Protein backbone atom coordinates (compact mmCIF):
# COMPACT_ATOMS: atom_id res chain seq x y z
CA UNK A 1 0.00 0.00 0.00
CA UNK A 2 2.91 2.27 -0.71
CA UNK A 3 2.22 5.44 -2.61
CA UNK A 4 2.70 5.25 -6.37
CA UNK A 5 5.69 7.56 -6.65
CA UNK A 6 8.46 6.16 -4.51
CA UNK A 7 8.21 2.46 -5.18
CA UNK A 8 11.40 0.48 -4.73
CA UNK A 9 12.87 -1.15 -7.83
CA UNK A 10 12.75 -4.56 -6.25
CA UNK A 11 9.92 -5.60 -3.96
CA UNK A 12 11.50 -8.87 -2.89
CA UNK A 13 14.30 -10.95 -4.32
CA UNK A 14 16.58 -13.83 -3.58
CA UNK A 15 19.88 -14.14 -5.42
CA UNK A 16 21.94 -17.29 -5.82
CA UNK A 17 20.34 -18.91 -2.81
CA UNK A 18 21.65 -22.23 -1.54
CA UNK A 19 20.34 -24.34 1.29
CA UNK A 20 21.28 -27.79 2.50
CA UNK A 21 19.39 -29.96 4.97
CA UNK A 22 21.74 -32.69 6.13
CA UNK A 23 22.51 -34.64 2.99
CA UNK A 24 19.79 -33.03 0.96
CA UNK A 25 20.73 -30.06 -1.18
CA UNK A 26 17.35 -28.43 -1.39
CA UNK A 27 18.63 -25.34 -3.18
CA UNK A 28 21.86 -25.01 -5.10
CA UNK A 29 21.63 -21.75 -7.02
CA UNK A 30 18.17 -20.27 -7.10
CA UNK A 31 17.25 -16.70 -7.88
CA UNK A 32 13.98 -14.89 -8.16
CA UNK A 33 13.15 -11.21 -8.40
CA UNK A 34 9.77 -9.58 -7.94
CA UNK A 35 9.27 -5.92 -8.80
CA UNK A 36 6.48 -3.81 -7.38
CA UNK A 37 3.25 -4.17 -9.31
CA UNK A 38 4.14 -7.42 -10.95
CA UNK A 39 3.02 -11.00 -10.51
CA UNK A 40 5.83 -13.52 -10.73
CA UNK A 41 5.01 -17.21 -10.96
CA UNK A 42 7.41 -19.71 -9.45
CA UNK A 43 7.01 -23.15 -10.98
CA UNK A 44 8.83 -26.36 -10.34
CA UNK A 45 8.30 -30.07 -9.96
CA UNK A 46 7.94 -31.65 -6.54
CA UNK A 47 11.28 -31.44 -4.76
CA UNK A 48 12.59 -28.69 -7.03
CA UNK A 49 13.00 -26.42 -4.02
CA UNK A 50 9.98 -24.14 -4.29
CA UNK A 51 8.94 -24.43 -0.64
CA UNK A 52 12.50 -24.02 0.56
CA UNK A 53 12.89 -20.87 -1.52
CA UNK A 54 9.63 -19.51 -0.18
CA UNK A 55 10.58 -20.31 3.39
CA UNK A 56 13.90 -18.53 2.95
CA UNK A 57 12.12 -15.46 1.60
CA UNK A 58 9.82 -15.64 4.64
CA UNK A 59 12.68 -15.87 7.12
CA UNK A 60 11.68 -19.35 8.28
CA UNK A 61 14.94 -20.84 6.96
CA UNK A 62 18.26 -19.07 6.70
CA UNK A 63 20.15 -19.62 3.44
CA UNK A 64 23.64 -21.15 3.50
CA UNK A 65 24.56 -18.91 0.61
CA UNK A 66 23.17 -16.06 -1.41
CA UNK A 67 21.45 -12.80 -0.59
CA UNK A 68 17.96 -11.71 0.28
CA UNK A 69 16.58 -8.34 -0.76
CA UNK A 70 13.44 -6.65 0.49
CA UNK A 71 12.53 -3.20 -0.87
CA UNK A 72 16.02 -2.72 -2.34
CA UNK A 73 17.68 -3.48 1.00
CA UNK A 74 19.79 -6.54 1.65
CA UNK A 75 18.38 -8.27 4.74
CA UNK A 76 19.27 -11.20 6.96
CA UNK A 77 16.04 -12.05 8.77
CA UNK A 78 16.03 -14.48 11.67
CA UNK A 79 12.31 -15.04 11.96
CA UNK A 80 9.03 -14.73 10.15
CA UNK A 81 8.27 -11.75 12.36
CA UNK A 82 11.26 -9.77 11.11
CA UNK A 83 10.19 -10.35 7.52
CA UNK A 84 6.65 -9.28 8.33
CA UNK A 85 8.01 -6.09 9.83
CA UNK A 86 9.63 -5.41 6.46
CA UNK A 87 6.19 -5.50 4.88
CA UNK A 88 6.22 -9.01 3.45
CA UNK A 89 3.32 -11.34 4.08
CA UNK A 90 2.34 -14.77 2.88
CA UNK A 91 -0.79 -16.64 1.87
CA UNK A 92 -0.38 -20.27 2.76
CA UNK A 93 -1.92 -23.19 0.94
CA UNK A 94 -4.03 -24.05 3.97
CA UNK A 95 -3.84 -23.85 7.74
CA UNK A 96 -3.38 -20.12 7.46
CA UNK A 97 -6.35 -19.12 9.59
CA UNK A 98 -7.50 -20.14 13.05
CA UNK A 99 -10.82 -21.91 12.34
CA UNK A 100 -12.48 -21.02 15.64
CA UNK A 101 -11.77 -17.31 15.37
CA UNK A 102 -14.01 -14.90 13.51
CA UNK A 103 -13.06 -13.41 10.16
CA UNK A 104 -12.21 -10.11 11.83
CA UNK A 105 -10.10 -11.66 14.58
CA UNK A 106 -8.23 -13.70 12.01
CA UNK A 107 -7.51 -10.73 9.80
CA UNK A 108 -6.14 -8.79 12.76
CA UNK A 109 -4.38 -11.66 14.52
CA UNK A 110 -1.03 -10.32 15.69
CA UNK A 111 -1.98 -6.80 14.57
CA UNK A 112 -4.98 -6.20 16.84
CA UNK A 113 -6.17 -2.63 17.21
CA UNK A 114 -6.69 -1.75 20.86
CA UNK A 115 -9.01 0.85 22.31
CA UNK A 116 -7.76 4.24 23.31
CA UNK A 117 -6.65 5.09 26.82
CA UNK A 118 -6.66 2.74 29.80
CA UNK A 119 -8.72 0.07 28.07
CA UNK A 120 -6.15 -0.06 25.31
CA UNK A 121 -3.32 -0.39 27.75
CA UNK A 122 -5.13 -3.39 29.19
CA UNK A 123 -5.22 -4.84 25.69
CA UNK A 124 -8.95 -4.45 25.09
CA UNK A 125 -9.48 -4.68 21.35
CA UNK A 126 -11.52 -2.19 19.36
CA UNK A 127 -13.64 -4.79 17.57
CA UNK A 128 -15.97 -2.29 15.96
CA UNK A 129 -13.12 -0.41 14.36
CA UNK A 130 -11.43 -3.65 13.32
CA UNK A 131 -14.66 -4.88 11.77
CA UNK A 132 -15.16 -1.65 9.84
CA UNK A 133 -11.62 -1.69 8.50
CA UNK A 134 -11.68 -5.38 7.67
CA UNK A 135 -14.95 -4.86 5.85
CA UNK A 136 -13.43 -2.02 3.82
CA UNK A 137 -10.34 -4.09 3.02
CA UNK A 138 -12.47 -7.02 1.85
CA UNK A 139 -14.64 -4.73 -0.26
CA UNK A 140 -11.61 -3.23 -1.96
CA UNK A 141 -10.71 -6.71 -3.12
CA UNK A 142 -14.35 -7.38 -4.07
CA UNK A 143 -14.61 -10.17 -1.54
CA UNK A 144 -18.13 -10.73 -0.26
CA UNK A 145 -18.85 -12.53 2.98
CA UNK A 146 -22.16 -13.02 4.76
CA UNK A 147 -20.76 -11.87 8.08
CA UNK A 148 -17.40 -10.97 9.55
CA UNK A 149 -18.20 -12.24 13.02
CA UNK A 150 -18.77 -15.88 12.10
CA UNK A 151 -15.94 -18.30 12.84
CA UNK A 152 -13.79 -19.02 9.79
CA UNK A 153 -14.73 -22.70 10.03
CA UNK A 154 -18.22 -21.69 8.88
CA UNK A 155 -16.89 -20.39 5.56
CA UNK A 156 -16.36 -22.31 2.34
CA UNK A 157 -12.85 -23.09 1.10
CA UNK A 158 -12.90 -20.25 -1.40
CA UNK A 159 -14.09 -17.74 1.15
CA UNK A 160 -11.37 -18.85 3.54
CA UNK A 161 -8.68 -18.44 0.91
CA UNK A 162 -10.08 -15.03 0.00
CA UNK A 163 -9.86 -14.00 3.66
CA UNK A 164 -6.28 -15.28 3.81
CA UNK A 165 -5.39 -13.20 0.73
CA UNK A 166 -7.09 -10.13 2.17
CA UNK A 167 -5.25 -10.63 5.42
CA UNK A 168 -1.88 -10.84 3.69
CA UNK A 169 -2.61 -7.79 1.54
CA UNK A 170 -3.67 -5.83 4.59
CA UNK A 171 -0.35 -6.30 6.36
CA UNK A 172 2.09 -6.26 3.47
CA UNK A 173 3.69 -3.06 2.27
CA UNK A 174 6.19 -4.50 -0.19
CA UNK A 175 5.15 -7.93 -1.32
CA UNK A 176 2.80 -10.85 -0.92
CA UNK A 177 4.00 -14.43 -1.28
CA UNK A 178 1.43 -17.06 -2.17
CA UNK A 179 2.06 -20.75 -1.62
CA UNK A 180 -0.27 -22.84 -3.76
CA UNK A 181 -3.16 -20.45 -3.16
CA UNK A 182 -5.48 -22.36 -5.47
CA UNK A 183 -4.55 -25.94 -4.61
CA UNK A 184 -7.57 -26.60 -2.44
CA UNK A 185 -10.05 -24.70 -4.58
CA UNK A 186 -12.51 -25.39 -7.37
CA UNK A 187 -12.18 -23.85 -10.81
CA UNK A 188 -14.35 -20.84 -10.15
CA UNK A 189 -12.79 -20.02 -6.84
CA UNK A 190 -9.31 -20.42 -8.33
CA UNK A 191 -10.27 -17.82 -10.90
CA UNK A 192 -11.24 -15.46 -8.07
CA UNK A 193 -7.93 -15.90 -6.34
CA UNK A 194 -6.02 -15.35 -9.60
CA UNK A 195 -8.01 -12.20 -10.17
CA UNK A 196 -7.05 -11.13 -6.65
CA UNK A 197 -3.36 -11.50 -7.55
CA UNK A 198 -3.76 -8.87 -10.26
CA UNK A 199 -5.72 -6.61 -7.93
CA UNK A 200 -2.99 -6.90 -5.32
CA UNK A 201 -0.22 -6.20 -7.83
CA UNK A 202 -2.07 -3.18 -9.19
CA UNK A 203 -1.70 -1.60 -5.75
CA UNK A 204 2.06 -1.56 -6.13
CA UNK A 205 2.87 -4.75 -4.28
CA UNK A 206 5.08 -7.48 -5.63
CA UNK A 207 3.32 -10.83 -5.86
CA UNK A 208 5.19 -14.13 -5.94
CA UNK A 209 3.03 -17.18 -6.61
CA UNK A 210 4.12 -20.76 -6.16
CA UNK A 211 1.70 -22.99 -8.02
CA UNK A 212 1.04 -26.18 -9.90
CA UNK A 213 -1.86 -24.62 -11.72
CA UNK A 214 0.20 -23.76 -14.82
CA UNK A 215 -2.47 -22.65 -17.32
CA UNK A 216 -4.32 -20.39 -14.94
CA UNK A 217 -1.33 -18.81 -13.24
CA UNK A 218 0.56 -18.41 -16.53
CA UNK A 219 -2.32 -16.27 -17.71
CA UNK A 220 -2.14 -13.79 -14.82
CA UNK A 221 1.65 -13.75 -14.31
CA UNK A 222 3.97 -11.11 -15.74
CA UNK A 223 7.08 -13.20 -15.45
CA UNK A 224 7.85 -16.84 -14.81
CA UNK A 225 10.66 -18.45 -12.90
CA UNK A 226 11.17 -22.20 -13.05
CA UNK A 227 13.16 -24.23 -10.55
CA UNK A 228 14.73 -27.54 -11.44
CA UNK A 229 16.60 -29.57 -8.86
CA UNK A 230 17.47 -26.56 -6.75
CA UNK A 231 18.55 -24.31 -9.62
CA UNK A 232 16.78 -21.61 -11.53
CA UNK A 233 16.25 -23.19 -14.93
CA UNK A 234 14.22 -20.50 -16.61
CA UNK A 235 13.38 -16.84 -16.13
CA UNK A 236 11.22 -15.24 -18.80
CA UNK A 237 8.29 -12.92 -19.32
CA UNK A 238 5.11 -14.95 -19.17
CA UNK A 239 3.96 -13.67 -22.54
CA UNK A 240 6.73 -15.58 -24.31
CA UNK A 241 5.82 -18.89 -22.73
CA UNK A 242 3.30 -21.64 -23.24
CA UNK A 243 2.41 -24.39 -20.82
CA UNK A 244 4.56 -26.96 -22.69
CA UNK A 245 7.57 -24.60 -22.46
CA UNK A 246 7.16 -24.39 -18.72
CA UNK A 247 6.68 -28.13 -18.34
CA UNK A 248 9.81 -28.76 -20.36
CA UNK A 249 11.79 -26.52 -18.04
CA UNK A 250 10.19 -28.12 -14.99
CA UNK A 251 11.29 -31.61 -15.95
CA UNK A 252 14.76 -30.42 -16.85
CA UNK A 253 14.47 -30.80 -20.60
CA UNK A 254 16.10 -27.42 -21.27
CA UNK A 255 18.92 -28.00 -18.86
CA UNK A 256 19.74 -31.39 -20.29
CA UNK A 257 19.50 -30.18 -23.86
CA UNK A 258 21.91 -27.29 -23.35
Amino acid at each position, binding site marked *: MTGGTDLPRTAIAGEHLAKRFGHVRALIDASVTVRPGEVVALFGDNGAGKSTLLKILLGIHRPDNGTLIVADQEVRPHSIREVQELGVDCVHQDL*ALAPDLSVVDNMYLGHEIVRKGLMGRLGVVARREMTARADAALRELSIKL*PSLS*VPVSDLSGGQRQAVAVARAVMWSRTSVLMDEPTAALGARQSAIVCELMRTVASRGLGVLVVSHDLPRVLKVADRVSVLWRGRTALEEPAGNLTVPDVVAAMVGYNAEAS
Partner: protein
Amino acid sequence: MTATADERDPTNLDDAADTRGVPKASLVTRWLASGGTWVLLLDVALVIVFTALSSNHVFWSLQDFQALMLDGTETLLLALGIAMFLGAGAIDISVGSNLVLSSVLGAEVMAHVAGTADAKGNYPHVLGTLALGFAVCIVAGVVYGMVNGLIIAYFRVNSLIATLGTAGVGTGIALLITGGNDIAGLPTAIQSDFGLFTAGPIPLPALVALAIGVGLWVVLRTTRYGVRTLAIGSLRLAAERAGLRVPRHLFSLAVLCGLLAGIAGFVDLSHFASTTVNGHTNDALAAITAVVIGGTRLEGGKVSLPGTLWGTGLSVVLQGGLVVIGVAPFWQLIAVGTVLIVAVCLDRVRFRRRAAG
Protein backbone atom coordinates in the same frame (compact mmCIF):
# COMPACT_ATOMS: atom_id res chain seq x y z
CA MET B 1 -18.17 -25.38 -5.90
CA THR B 2 -21.76 -24.26 -5.85
CA ALA B 3 -23.91 -23.27 -8.72
CA THR B 4 -26.36 -21.22 -6.71
CA ALA B 5 -24.14 -18.17 -6.45
CA ASP B 6 -23.95 -17.79 -10.23
CA GLU B 7 -27.69 -17.47 -10.50
CA ARG B 8 -27.92 -14.97 -7.73
CA ASP B 9 -25.25 -12.55 -8.81
CA PRO B 10 -24.05 -13.20 -12.35
CA THR B 11 -22.30 -9.85 -12.71
CA ASN B 12 -19.94 -10.39 -9.86
CA LEU B 13 -16.99 -12.67 -10.22
CA ASP B 14 -17.08 -14.06 -6.74
CA ASP B 15 -19.13 -16.90 -5.51
CA ALA B 16 -17.35 -15.98 -2.30
CA ALA B 17 -20.78 -14.53 -1.62
CA ASP B 18 -22.28 -17.98 -1.31
CA THR B 19 -24.33 -18.30 1.81
CA ARG B 20 -22.92 -21.42 3.33
CA GLY B 21 -21.44 -19.17 5.93
CA VAL B 22 -24.66 -18.23 7.65
CA PRO B 23 -25.04 -14.95 9.52
CA LYS B 24 -24.47 -14.97 13.22
CA ALA B 25 -27.39 -16.32 15.22
CA SER B 26 -29.12 -14.18 17.82
CA LEU B 27 -27.71 -13.93 21.31
CA VAL B 28 -30.43 -16.10 22.84
CA THR B 29 -30.06 -18.82 20.25
CA ARG B 30 -26.32 -18.89 20.70
CA TRP B 31 -26.69 -18.98 24.46
CA LEU B 32 -29.06 -21.92 24.28
CA ALA B 33 -26.84 -23.73 21.81
CA SER B 34 -23.64 -23.21 23.78
CA GLY B 35 -22.39 -26.27 25.58
CA GLY B 36 -22.55 -24.79 29.05
CA THR B 37 -26.20 -23.78 29.10
CA TRP B 38 -27.70 -27.22 29.48
CA VAL B 39 -25.36 -27.83 32.41
CA LEU B 40 -26.84 -24.76 34.11
CA LEU B 41 -30.32 -26.12 33.46
CA LEU B 42 -29.20 -29.45 34.91
CA ASP B 43 -27.88 -27.63 37.98
CA VAL B 44 -31.20 -25.88 38.48
CA ALA B 45 -33.12 -29.12 38.00
CA LEU B 46 -30.92 -30.89 40.54
CA VAL B 47 -31.38 -28.13 43.09
CA ILE B 48 -35.15 -28.46 42.66
CA VAL B 49 -35.03 -32.24 42.92
CA PHE B 50 -32.83 -32.24 46.02
CA THR B 51 -34.96 -29.56 47.63
CA ALA B 52 -38.09 -31.61 47.00
CA LEU B 53 -36.51 -34.82 48.25
CA SER B 54 -34.80 -33.48 51.35
CA SER B 55 -36.80 -33.63 54.54
CA ASN B 56 -38.31 -30.23 55.37
CA HIS B 57 -36.59 -29.02 52.19
CA VAL B 58 -33.42 -28.36 54.17
CA PHE B 59 -31.42 -28.36 50.96
CA TRP B 60 -32.99 -25.00 50.19
CA SER B 61 -31.23 -23.11 52.97
CA LEU B 62 -28.66 -20.39 53.10
CA GLN B 63 -26.20 -22.36 55.21
CA ASP B 64 -26.37 -25.17 52.75
CA PHE B 65 -25.70 -22.94 49.78
CA GLN B 66 -22.87 -21.21 51.59
CA ALA B 67 -21.30 -24.56 52.37
CA LEU B 68 -21.69 -25.62 48.76
CA MET B 69 -20.10 -22.41 47.52
CA LEU B 70 -17.16 -22.83 49.86
CA ASP B 71 -16.68 -26.40 48.70
CA GLY B 72 -16.75 -25.30 45.09
CA THR B 73 -14.44 -22.33 45.42
CA GLU B 74 -11.15 -24.19 45.20
CA THR B 75 -12.35 -26.37 42.34
CA LEU B 76 -13.59 -23.27 40.52
CA LEU B 77 -10.26 -21.47 40.88
CA LEU B 78 -8.38 -24.48 39.53
CA ALA B 79 -10.96 -25.00 36.79
CA LEU B 80 -10.72 -21.39 35.58
CA GLY B 81 -6.98 -21.75 35.10
CA ILE B 82 -7.36 -25.05 33.30
CA ALA B 83 -10.08 -23.64 31.05
CA MET B 84 -7.87 -20.74 29.98
CA PHE B 85 -4.92 -23.06 29.37
CA LEU B 86 -7.13 -25.49 27.42
CA GLY B 87 -8.14 -22.55 25.26
CA ALA B 88 -4.58 -22.55 23.96
CA GLY B 89 -4.65 -26.34 23.61
CA ALA B 90 -2.58 -27.20 26.69
CA ILE B 91 -3.54 -28.67 30.03
CA ASP B 92 -2.25 -28.47 33.58
CA ILE B 93 -2.99 -31.54 35.69
CA SER B 94 -0.58 -30.45 38.42
CA VAL B 95 -2.94 -27.83 39.88
CA GLY B 96 -3.96 -30.03 42.82
CA SER B 97 -0.35 -30.68 43.70
CA ASN B 98 0.40 -26.99 43.25
CA LEU B 99 -2.45 -26.14 45.63
CA VAL B 100 -1.05 -28.46 48.29
CA LEU B 101 2.55 -27.29 47.94
CA SER B 102 1.55 -23.62 47.96
CA SER B 103 -0.63 -24.08 51.03
CA VAL B 104 2.11 -26.02 52.83
CA LEU B 105 4.68 -23.31 52.16
CA GLY B 106 2.23 -20.59 53.16
CA ALA B 107 1.33 -22.46 56.34
CA GLU B 108 4.99 -23.08 57.22
CA VAL B 109 5.79 -19.40 56.93
CA MET B 110 2.69 -18.35 58.86
CA ALA B 111 3.39 -20.87 61.62
CA HIS B 112 6.91 -19.44 61.96
CA VAL B 113 6.00 -15.77 62.09
CA ALA B 114 2.71 -16.02 63.94
CA GLY B 115 4.37 -16.13 67.35
CA THR B 116 2.42 -17.54 70.28
CA ALA B 117 -1.14 -16.78 71.13
CA ASP B 118 -1.95 -14.94 74.30
CA ALA B 119 -4.41 -16.22 76.88
CA LYS B 120 -7.42 -15.24 74.75
CA GLY B 121 -6.08 -17.08 71.71
CA ASN B 122 -5.11 -13.89 69.89
CA TYR B 123 -1.85 -13.82 67.98
CA PRO B 124 0.36 -10.76 67.72
CA HIS B 125 0.48 -9.06 64.30
CA VAL B 126 -2.20 -11.28 62.82
CA LEU B 127 -2.78 -9.17 59.76
CA GLY B 128 0.89 -9.16 58.78
CA THR B 129 1.02 -12.91 59.24
CA LEU B 130 -1.99 -13.48 56.99
CA ALA B 131 -0.71 -11.10 54.35
CA LEU B 132 2.66 -12.81 54.35
CA GLY B 133 1.01 -16.22 54.16
CA PHE B 134 -1.08 -15.08 51.22
CA ALA B 135 1.99 -13.69 49.46
CA VAL B 136 3.91 -16.92 49.99
CA CYS B 137 1.03 -19.01 48.62
CA ILE B 138 0.86 -16.83 45.53
CA VAL B 139 4.59 -16.75 44.91
CA ALA B 140 4.80 -20.51 45.36
CA GLY B 141 1.92 -21.04 42.94
CA VAL B 142 3.46 -18.71 40.37
CA VAL B 143 6.89 -20.32 40.61
CA TYR B 144 5.28 -23.74 40.20
CA GLY B 145 3.48 -22.40 37.13
CA MET B 146 6.72 -20.96 35.77
CA VAL B 147 8.38 -24.36 36.01
CA ASN B 148 5.44 -25.90 34.14
CA GLY B 149 5.53 -23.12 31.57
CA LEU B 150 9.23 -23.48 31.00
CA ILE B 151 8.90 -27.19 30.32
CA ILE B 152 5.79 -26.89 28.16
CA ALA B 153 6.52 -23.72 26.19
CA TYR B 154 10.27 -23.70 25.78
CA PHE B 155 11.21 -27.39 25.96
CA ARG B 156 8.07 -28.15 23.97
CA VAL B 157 7.09 -31.11 26.14
CA ASN B 158 3.48 -32.27 25.87
CA SER B 159 1.63 -30.43 28.62
CA LEU B 160 -0.06 -33.56 29.97
CA ILE B 161 3.28 -35.28 30.47
CA ALA B 162 5.04 -32.18 31.76
CA THR B 163 2.44 -31.49 34.43
CA LEU B 164 2.09 -35.18 35.28
CA GLY B 165 5.77 -35.05 36.12
CA THR B 166 5.67 -31.81 38.08
CA ALA B 167 2.55 -33.01 39.93
CA GLY B 168 4.56 -35.89 41.32
CA VAL B 169 7.50 -33.67 42.21
CA GLY B 170 5.28 -31.04 43.83
CA THR B 171 3.37 -33.51 45.96
CA GLY B 172 6.64 -35.17 46.95
CA ILE B 173 8.14 -31.87 48.09
CA ALA B 174 5.01 -31.02 50.08
CA LEU B 175 5.11 -34.39 51.84
CA LEU B 176 8.85 -34.05 52.53
CA ILE B 177 8.32 -30.64 54.15
CA THR B 178 5.45 -31.80 56.31
CA GLY B 179 6.48 -35.39 56.85
CA GLY B 180 2.98 -36.25 55.73
CA ASN B 181 1.35 -34.51 58.69
CA ASP B 182 -0.84 -31.49 58.32
CA ILE B 183 0.30 -28.16 59.65
CA ALA B 184 -2.47 -27.07 62.01
CA GLY B 185 -2.93 -24.31 64.52
CA LEU B 186 -2.78 -21.35 62.19
CA PRO B 187 -4.23 -18.08 63.51
CA THR B 188 -7.99 -18.56 63.51
CA ALA B 189 -8.31 -15.08 62.06
CA ILE B 190 -7.60 -16.71 58.69
CA GLN B 191 -11.01 -18.33 59.02
CA SER B 192 -12.96 -15.54 60.66
CA ASP B 193 -11.55 -12.77 58.47
CA PHE B 194 -11.42 -14.58 55.15
CA GLY B 195 -12.28 -18.24 54.85
CA LEU B 196 -15.58 -18.22 56.70
CA PHE B 197 -16.26 -14.51 56.33
CA THR B 198 -19.34 -13.75 54.30
CA ALA B 199 -20.04 -10.64 52.32
CA GLY B 200 -23.80 -10.54 52.36
CA PRO B 201 -24.88 -14.12 51.76
CA ILE B 202 -21.76 -15.11 49.81
CA PRO B 203 -18.57 -16.44 51.41
CA LEU B 204 -15.66 -14.14 50.68
CA PRO B 205 -13.46 -16.78 49.00
CA ALA B 206 -16.31 -17.68 46.65
CA LEU B 207 -16.75 -13.99 45.86
CA VAL B 208 -13.05 -13.71 45.05
CA ALA B 209 -13.23 -16.75 42.76
CA LEU B 210 -16.32 -15.40 41.00
CA ALA B 211 -14.67 -12.02 40.52
CA ILE B 212 -11.62 -13.71 39.03
CA GLY B 213 -13.93 -15.69 36.77
CA VAL B 214 -15.66 -12.54 35.53
CA GLY B 215 -12.27 -10.89 35.01
CA LEU B 216 -10.99 -13.80 32.97
CA TRP B 217 -14.19 -13.85 30.93
CA VAL B 218 -13.63 -10.20 30.03
CA VAL B 219 -10.01 -10.93 29.15
CA LEU B 220 -11.01 -13.86 26.96
CA ARG B 221 -13.80 -12.08 25.10
CA THR B 222 -12.51 -8.55 24.73
CA THR B 223 -8.74 -8.48 24.81
CA ARG B 224 -5.86 -9.20 22.51
CA TYR B 225 -4.65 -11.73 25.06
CA GLY B 226 -7.91 -13.67 24.81
CA VAL B 227 -7.96 -13.65 21.01
CA ARG B 228 -4.39 -14.88 20.85
CA THR B 229 -5.04 -17.60 23.44
CA LEU B 230 -7.87 -19.03 21.35
CA ALA B 231 -5.88 -18.61 18.13
CA ILE B 232 -3.05 -20.73 19.50
CA GLY B 233 -5.46 -23.43 20.61
CA SER B 234 -7.46 -23.29 17.41
CA LEU B 235 -4.47 -23.75 15.13
CA ARG B 236 -1.00 -23.25 16.52
CA LEU B 237 0.57 -23.09 13.07
CA ALA B 238 -1.72 -20.23 12.04
CA ALA B 239 -0.81 -18.35 15.21
CA GLU B 240 2.89 -18.85 14.51
CA ARG B 241 2.46 -17.73 10.93
CA ALA B 242 0.69 -14.63 12.16
CA GLY B 243 3.87 -13.82 14.02
CA LEU B 244 2.58 -14.49 17.55
CA ARG B 245 5.14 -15.37 20.18
CA VAL B 246 3.50 -18.69 20.97
CA PRO B 247 5.97 -19.99 23.57
CA ARG B 248 5.80 -16.77 25.57
CA HIS B 249 2.02 -16.88 25.49
CA LEU B 250 1.86 -20.50 26.65
CA PHE B 251 4.30 -19.66 29.42
CA SER B 252 2.08 -16.86 30.65
CA LEU B 253 -0.94 -19.16 30.68
CA ALA B 254 0.95 -21.76 32.70
CA VAL B 255 1.84 -19.02 35.18
CA LEU B 256 -1.82 -18.01 35.34
CA CYS B 257 -2.77 -21.61 36.20
CA GLY B 258 -0.11 -21.58 38.91
CA LEU B 259 -1.27 -18.25 40.29
CA LEU B 260 -4.85 -19.49 40.59
CA ALA B 261 -3.66 -22.71 42.25
CA GLY B 262 -1.68 -20.59 44.71
CA ILE B 263 -4.79 -18.57 45.55
CA ALA B 264 -6.72 -21.82 45.92
CA GLY B 265 -4.01 -22.97 48.31
CA PHE B 266 -4.62 -19.97 50.53
CA VAL B 267 -8.38 -20.54 50.34
CA ASP B 268 -7.76 -24.10 51.48
CA LEU B 269 -5.80 -22.85 54.51
CA SER B 270 -8.49 -20.34 55.34
CA HIS B 271 -11.19 -22.99 55.18
CA PHE B 272 -9.80 -25.23 57.92
CA ALA B 273 -6.99 -23.10 59.44
CA SER B 274 -4.69 -25.98 58.55
CA THR B 275 -3.29 -27.74 55.53
CA THR B 276 -4.91 -30.83 54.04
CA VAL B 277 -1.98 -32.46 52.28
CA ASN B 278 -3.82 -35.68 51.51
CA GLY B 279 -7.16 -34.19 50.56
CA HIS B 280 -6.43 -32.95 47.05
CA THR B 281 -5.44 -35.93 44.98
CA ASN B 282 -8.60 -35.68 42.91
CA ASP B 283 -8.71 -31.89 42.61
CA ALA B 284 -7.19 -31.70 39.15
CA LEU B 285 -9.56 -34.35 37.81
CA ALA B 286 -12.57 -32.61 39.37
CA ALA B 287 -11.49 -29.31 37.84
CA ILE B 288 -10.90 -30.78 34.39
CA THR B 289 -14.27 -32.51 34.62
CA ALA B 290 -15.99 -29.22 35.44
CA VAL B 291 -14.26 -27.48 32.55
CA VAL B 292 -15.07 -30.13 29.97
CA ILE B 293 -18.67 -30.60 31.10
CA GLY B 294 -19.04 -26.85 30.71
CA GLY B 295 -18.31 -27.03 27.01
CA THR B 296 -14.63 -26.12 26.78
CA ARG B 297 -12.98 -28.12 24.02
CA LEU B 298 -10.08 -30.37 25.02
CA GLU B 299 -8.22 -29.66 21.78
CA GLY B 300 -8.30 -25.92 22.34
CA GLY B 301 -9.76 -22.95 20.54
CA LYS B 302 -13.07 -22.94 22.40
CA VAL B 303 -13.53 -21.95 26.02
CA SER B 304 -16.68 -21.49 28.07
CA LEU B 305 -16.00 -19.87 31.41
CA PRO B 306 -19.70 -19.65 32.40
CA GLY B 307 -19.89 -23.35 31.51
CA THR B 308 -16.93 -23.95 33.79
CA LEU B 309 -18.87 -22.33 36.62
CA TRP B 310 -21.96 -24.47 35.93
CA GLY B 311 -19.79 -27.56 35.64
CA THR B 312 -18.21 -26.83 39.01
CA GLY B 313 -21.70 -26.25 40.39
CA LEU B 314 -22.85 -29.63 39.12
CA SER B 315 -20.32 -31.65 41.07
CA VAL B 316 -20.83 -29.53 44.19
CA VAL B 317 -24.64 -29.72 44.04
CA LEU B 318 -24.52 -33.47 43.48
CA GLN B 319 -22.12 -33.98 46.36
CA GLY B 320 -24.12 -31.87 48.80
CA GLY B 321 -27.52 -33.02 47.57
CA LEU B 322 -26.79 -36.72 47.85
CA VAL B 323 -25.62 -36.24 51.41
CA VAL B 324 -28.76 -34.29 52.29
CA ILE B 325 -31.13 -36.89 50.89
CA GLY B 326 -29.18 -39.65 52.59
CA VAL B 327 -27.65 -41.38 49.61
CA ALA B 328 -24.05 -42.52 49.88
CA PRO B 329 -22.00 -39.63 48.48
CA PHE B 330 -19.96 -42.09 46.44
CA TRP B 331 -22.82 -41.89 43.95
CA GLN B 332 -21.63 -38.37 43.25
CA LEU B 333 -18.49 -39.78 41.60
CA ILE B 334 -20.60 -42.05 39.42
CA ALA B 335 -23.04 -39.30 38.50
CA VAL B 336 -20.36 -36.73 37.64
CA GLY B 337 -18.42 -39.31 35.66
CA THR B 338 -21.54 -40.19 33.69
CA VAL B 339 -22.31 -36.54 32.97
CA LEU B 340 -18.72 -36.04 31.82
CA ILE B 341 -18.96 -38.93 29.36
CA VAL B 342 -22.32 -37.73 28.06
CA ALA B 343 -21.01 -34.18 27.66
CA VAL B 344 -17.96 -35.30 25.72
CA CYS B 345 -20.04 -37.65 23.54
CA LEU B 346 -22.44 -34.83 22.69
CA ASP B 347 -19.51 -32.59 21.86
CA ARG B 348 -18.06 -35.22 19.54
CA VAL B 349 -21.37 -35.63 17.74
CA ARG B 350 -21.63 -31.89 17.23
CA PHE B 351 -18.03 -31.68 16.09
CA ARG B 352 -18.45 -34.49 13.55
CA ARG B 353 -21.67 -33.07 12.21
CA ARG B 354 -19.95 -29.74 11.71
CA ALA B 355 -16.91 -31.30 10.06
CA ALA B 356 -19.18 -33.26 7.72
CA GLY B 357 -21.41 -30.29 6.97
